């Protein structure tokens, strides 16, 4: 048996942000197996202080380009709770479409562009343009379609523009919505089905590994928990959003500019697999079929299967968006202005599922409508301890393999979490002293 | 609109022409000989300019630096200053470029007949004046003295070295030059161009002064000329402004109410003096 192993992956590729994988084994004793987060700290919560409520979501959206929509919406919801701004049903439906679109986009990007190259043994999606052109083209079409959703509803898929506190500054027309629906049906569903075939054909390339952990996600008994709901833990059931600090319990570790989190165990998992495990019964019929086809059955304890859960969610998002558009068309688009007249000032906490898992924003506003205190807890941060725990269990299991294979499996493991490292370093709680 | 004769349909459309010769003059300037399609003759006056056009790189106004007596081709001297001019510098003999023009008023050469002509050229200002210099040399008997004053920042920026050698060797031409900053090999005058003016002896009532150079030069050259009691009526300037269309539409080149591309670039000093923004 191998006694020594030393792995140091500097600036892991095909993830968002900067992270290193460090494994150190001496005489058969595993000293270290960690994901080091080396992203530069950005002090967002500090920068938010004194910002006007119009600017808060614009700022927090810049925490992360990939999850910009999730940050934006969570931020808006927290602001609305804090300032007592009611939103209309139309606004809520439009926002749900946005969440679907963003999840659809991000999951496609991750599953097909960042993770698939691993299954095909290439370093990026680019060589696949020559070898698997059809797949790449379908993937590009899907990604474009997903971005079209964001572009139409919020003006821009990355760092959305028109969704603001209290509503939207610009509304899509009914014609634009029904054109989008057409496209989702005629292009989106067939392409998604094709993508599912591709992933199904690669199923045997997904490493088999299991480690049961605590799964935490947003839960809502009417629909698959994305836009809103309460917190659900696979260990202890439902918990109100306002109590989020009891779950996240953040702590500093020296190998990460991002804080770690734990609840009932030494770590917990958030993200597509956590959502699937907690809410699979609420998936749309199309997604249920896809899950069955890809052999994803709840509860599933293989973190590598997170990628598969993402594909299942893509199907869900497409079908769900079609339904939401129908709902809007039935009601007719009403020319509503954003409701931006605060009725109170105080604290607001909100949660939304972003592609990488559950996200919390917690703001306190003063009487002038300026931020006094802010806290954002980001999914990748919550997953870090779980990734370290996975590595601790995985390394001894595969220690007989070549160093190259071990490294690759570790990289794939981290990538499966689709970590969004640059946002994870913003989960910094700051108390301001006046 | 009823009854409007639509003339010049081709206001913005270039003639696809050919670069037939490229000559490197300095690090920054090259001279290009251009042939219009079908041996057409441009038919310009000294002091006029063309709009050079390279697809994908834009258009730029460039003075014609050869005399109209040189036919059918004409020359442009181009300083590498940006998008189009940089691209032009990478072009070889045989390359195609678009030409619109000639534009602008140019010098009224018949009015200058019988007069002494003083050329005051600063830096690349020699290029536009070169067409007039060459013209007066070609029609030497029609003009009196030809006095050329030329100043550059340093010796490496001297243009048209061949011609200068010829001018220096010719008895019919008085040529003086200076550089602001000499290098170790420089043997000639040093100092700004205005230092060349006081020593020369001029029959001011019968001398036409033509001045072209960088924007700051004009004020000082005119002051020196006035110092020699040169009457305003005898001074001509050619001015540069930002320019897009070359045909009096885009507005960029306006000096007060005057379009440089139409009423210039050559200005009679008494007129330029009236224009507050001119100098």
């Amino acid at each position, binding site marked *: 048996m191998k006694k020594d192993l030393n792995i140091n992956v500097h600036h892991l590729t095909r993830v968002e942000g900067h992270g290193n994988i460090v494994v150190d084994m001496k005489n058969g004793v595993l000293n270290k197996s960690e994901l080091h987060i080396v992203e530069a700290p950005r002090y967002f919560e500090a920068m938010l202080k004194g910002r006007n409520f119009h600017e808060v979501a614009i700022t927090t959206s810049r925490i992360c380009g990939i999850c910009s929509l999730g940050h934006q919406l969570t931020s808006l919801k927290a602001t609305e709770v804090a300032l007592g701004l009611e939103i209309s049903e139309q606004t809520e439906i439009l926002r749900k479409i946005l969440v679907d679109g963003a999840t659809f986009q991000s999951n496609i990007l991750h599953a097909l562009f960042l993770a698939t190259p691993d299954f095909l043994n290439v370093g990026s999606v680019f060589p696949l343009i020559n070898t698997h052109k059809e797949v790449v083209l379908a993937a590009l079409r899907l990604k474009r379609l997903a971005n079209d959703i964001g572009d139409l509803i919020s003006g821009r898929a990355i760092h959305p523009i028109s969704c603001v506190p209290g509503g939207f500054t610009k509304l899509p027309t009914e014609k634009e919505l029904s054109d989008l629906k057409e496209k989702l049906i005629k292009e989106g569903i067939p392409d998604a089905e094709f993508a599912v075939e591709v992933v199904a054909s690669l199923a045997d390339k997904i490493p088999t590994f299991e480690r049961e952990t605590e799964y935490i996600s947003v839960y809502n008994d009417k629909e698959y928990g994305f836009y809103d709901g309460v917190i659900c833990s696979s260990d202890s059931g439902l918990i109100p959003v306002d109590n989020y600090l009891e779950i996240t319990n953040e702590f500093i570790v020296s190998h990460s500019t991002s804080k770690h989190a734990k609840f009932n165990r030494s770590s917990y998992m958030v993200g597509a697999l956590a959502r699937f495990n907690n809410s699979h019964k609420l998936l749309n019929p199309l997604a249920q079929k896809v899950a069955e086809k890809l052999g994803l059955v709840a509860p599933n304890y293989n973190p590598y299967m997170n990628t598969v859960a993402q594909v299942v969610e893509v199907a869900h998002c497409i079908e769900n968006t079609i339904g939401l558009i129908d709902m809007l068309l039935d009601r007719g688009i009403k020319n509503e202005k954003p409701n931006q007249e605060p009725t109170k000032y105080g604290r607001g906490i909100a949660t939304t599922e972003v592609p990488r898992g559950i996200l919390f924003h917690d703001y306190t506003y003063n009487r002038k409508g300026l931020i006094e205190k802010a806290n954002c807890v980001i999914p990748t941060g919550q997953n870090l301890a779980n990734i370290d725990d996975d590595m601790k269990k995985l390394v001894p299991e595969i220690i007989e393999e070549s160093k190259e294979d071990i490294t690759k499996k570790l990289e794939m493991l981290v990538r499966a979490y689709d970590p969004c490292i640059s946002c994870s370093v913003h989960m910094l709680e700051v108390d301001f002293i006046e | 609109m009823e009854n409007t004769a639509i003339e010049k349909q081709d*206001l913005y459309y270039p003639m696809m022409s050919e670069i037939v010769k490229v000559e490197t003059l300095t690090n920054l300037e090259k001279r290009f000989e251009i042939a219009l399609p079908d041996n057409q003759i441009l038919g310009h006056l000294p002091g006029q300019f063309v709009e050079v056009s390279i697809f994908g790189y834009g258009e730029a106004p460039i003075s014609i630096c050869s005399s109209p007596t040189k036919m059918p081709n004409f020359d442009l001297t181009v300083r590498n200053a940006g998008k189009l001019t940089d691209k032009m510098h990478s072009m070889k003999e045989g390359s195609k470029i678009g030409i619109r023009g000639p534009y602008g008023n140019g010098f009224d050469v018949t009015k200058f007949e019988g007069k002494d002509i003083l050329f005051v050229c600063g830096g690349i200002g020699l290029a536009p004046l070169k067409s007039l210099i060459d013209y007066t040399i070609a029609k030497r008997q029609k003009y009196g003295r030809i006095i050329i004053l030329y100043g550059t920042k340093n010796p490496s920026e001297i243009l048209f070295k061949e011609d200068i050698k010829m001018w220096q060797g010719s008895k019919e031409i008085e040529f003086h030059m200076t550089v602001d900053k000499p290098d170790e090999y420089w043997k000639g005058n040093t100092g700004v161009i205005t230092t060349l003016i006081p020593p020369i002896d001029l029959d001011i009532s019968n001398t036409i002064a033509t001045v072209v150079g960088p*924007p700051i030069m004009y004020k000082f050259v005119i002051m020196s000329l006035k110092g020699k009691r040169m009457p305003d009526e005898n001074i001509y300037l050619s001015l540069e402004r930002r320019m897009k269309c070359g*045909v009096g*539409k885009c507005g960029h080149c306006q000096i007060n109410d005057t379009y440089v591309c139409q009423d210039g670039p050559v200005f009679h000093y008494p007129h330029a003096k009236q224009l507050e923004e001119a100098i």
Partner: protein
Amino acid sequence: MYYDSNTGLNKMKRYYFDQPTTDKFVEFLMTQAEVIAPQKKGDASYSYEVVTSGKDIVYDYPRTIQPLKKYFLPPRETLLSFDSKNNEFKKTDIALNNRIFFAIHSYEMQGIKRLDYSFTQGNPEFNYLQRRENSIFIGISFNPDKWHFTKSVGISIEEVERFSLYFEPVDNGFLVFEVDDTGKELISKFGNGLSLDASMDFEVREKEFKTKIKYHYNRLPQVFEHVYNSKVWSDIAQKCVGCGTCNLLCPTCYCFDVRDEVELEISKGKRERFWDGCMLNEFAEVAGGENFREKLSSRTRHRLHRKFKYITDHSGELHCVGCGRCTKYCPANISIVEIINNLIEEYSDHQKEQII
């Protein structure tokens, strides 16, 4: 320049259109040509748009955001498309649809007249002139708001020059005046079989302009002879942020910039022109960094001189038509009328001093 509006309209043949007739008339116009008319844009703004349904037309509007010039000098226009591999280029086709511009205010029409002058002077411009072909204009009166000052620059509300028909709102409809032969033809084509009561009397009701220039417009060029070095310019420059809005939205401004852009297939592309403005920083900058109008004061001075002196000296007409756009849309709330009145004040003080 200034027509006596009463006699102008009083001599003309007229018809009464109630609202249903007006709607039918619009439908009729739409069978004749592309109809362009003011429509609502955003919450409280208007713009000239192609009419797809007569219901969208707004008859009582203060002014549109962009002036009508956008149809003759588009904000962004392809001058030519090229293929640099083969050294070829194609001129752009300018569609020559018949167009009817409906419910146009007098100052807007006068703005087009000023542009006609600018684009036929010197080198007449084909693109503009071709777009101007086959255009019919139908006027409508307006209620001056606090930004209009057309009367101060010699343009009455009922100025019908270059209109073919003119609409004056009356109870439950419009009086429609037949201004020229084209208008007459339109009415006769449309009116076939309809009874369009034509006998109604009409008297222009004088409408009050809240904004006025202190001097008669005839004297403005003279004022501008003397204010080149005025202090007013630097006062304005304290407030102005140089955004260019006043240039871009002015119906008589026409400066432009030209840029080449290639496609991803790098040898193909087009040469485009865009509206530009003398208030913008880089407008008069040349290679080597010299900026001939670096100061905001010199830029505002240039802008105003172009409206009241430079072109006026040649055309004999003021090139401000009093639409008020540059003031209404200026983010810094700089009022052109205030500038002119300040200049006038300074000028008249100066005159007084001369007399003493």
